[in-house]
């Protein structure tokens, strides 16, 4: 089978990799370019653990044909932190004890990130809707919803300070 050369932006860096026809994005991210931050929970589009952003919009990487991201911008939770400085969402998850086993966390963070990019000051209902495609077995969801709301507040505060 002929492999295809694929180039895309991964968390602001160029990524280039050869992919098999029909390869899905989660495999290419994890095995092809070695970004282990997105997780594969179900491999069939029902758990949300593999959520990544493609051109800023959340997608399930397990259901995305890798070749469709040619030339596009892919973001994973591995790119959230700025060097040693965690993203406000990561900090809020940590401080709010919003992760236990952590398997859902990468997907939750990216779903939340997409929401806050779109709606900087979301209501509780909007947060719930944004993560309703992401399953969590451990936390009971409440700490996650609270953490996303806390991060939104924190980011609003930062924005105000920068003005």
């Amino acid at each position, binding site marked *: 089978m002929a492999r295809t050369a694929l180039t895309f932006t991964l968390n602001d860096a160029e990524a280039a990799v050869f992919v098999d026809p029909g390869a899905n994005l989660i495999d290419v991210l994890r095995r092809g370019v070695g970004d282990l931050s997105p997780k594969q929970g179900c491999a069939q589009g029902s758990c949300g653990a593999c959520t990544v952003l493609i051109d800023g919009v959340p997608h399930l990487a397990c259901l995305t044909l890798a070749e469709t991201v040619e030339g596009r911008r892919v973001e994973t939770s591995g790119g959230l932190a700025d060097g040693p400085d965690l993203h406000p969402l990561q900090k809020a998850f940590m401080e709010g*004890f919003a992760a236990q086993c952590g398997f859902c966390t990468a997907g939750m963070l990216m779903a939340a990130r997409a929401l806050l990019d779109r709606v900087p000051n979301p209501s509780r209902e909007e947060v*719930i809707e944004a993560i309703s495609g992401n*399953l969590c077995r451990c*936390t009971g969801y409440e700490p996650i919803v609270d953490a996303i709301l806390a991060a939104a507040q924190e980011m609003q505060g930062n924005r105000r300070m920068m003005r």
Partner: protein
Amino acid sequence: MAIHKGRGFAAINYPIGMNLGGDPAQALVHSTPDGKFMVALSAIDLGQGMKSVTRQIAAETIGVPVEDVYVDTADSDTGPHDMGSFASRGTHRVGNAVIRAAAEARKQLLEAAAEELEVNASDLDTDGRGNIHVKGAPGRSITVMETSQAAQFKQGRTLAGRGIFLIPLSGTDPDTGEMTPVSCFAHAALVIDLEVDDETGEVEVTQINSAYEVGRALNPRLVEQQLIGGAWMGVSHALYETTEPYYPDRSHGPVDFNHYVMPGPGQIVPHHIAVLERPAEDAPFGGKGPGEMCANPVLPAVANAVYNAVGVRCDTLPITPEKILRGLRANGGARPQGRR
């Protein structure tokens, strides 16, 4: 057709660790040349926080800052033997093994420091901030890092400890049947408020109030996190989760997460928790661990609340709308049991 409110109560005495004992846990502790301590375990942290708690226990016992302790639970091939993370045994069994291993490492740490300071080890104490000093003379001190380096590069000794905790397997007295099933119990009581729709059979849990007695809460935030997440799982087991088909034909059974029903973020139930601390004598720093009983009492409390609401007694799980509707039909309608 109406919505009926119901309230249900359940209490639990939860035995910590394997019933009848016989479940050893081991821990190994050693120092590294930069004055940190490694704890090697084979018990696995599945997200309950066992790594955090054993880290706290080791740091407290050795007398060093918690940042200077690392816990490695990586590999059951190469690590010391452990029965595993189940039966709410992590904090109690593994924590006790860690205390023993850490106490031996502390003894060796103080002996090595005594040699450097030319004093008796029994005259030394740690300050919990990375220093070892002569009791009553804080000026005469040496850092843990210096001690660790002296031990390894000058004195040629290890600062290490081995720990095992075993509650021996309890036998049964052939005459009386007497045995010792468990050494340490945790306790909880829980009240569920819910609503049952007698037209659809749907149940909505509206509130959980609980009191948990888990010994000393070694890490209160982790305890709370466990109790909240566990109660969610309890509601999920009580009302939704099953691998059995809801209808007679097996092909109707769940094949993936789209059919295996669980409550989502839109069905969060407010949960008010009171954590009561009664440190247990044989538990590490008194901590028993919340473990499985985060979820257990939720199930009978939900069943009791459904009965209280509409008079239908469901004795199989999950309590589906179908079972409630069949019960209502058999009873000739809802029979609210009255406010409790």
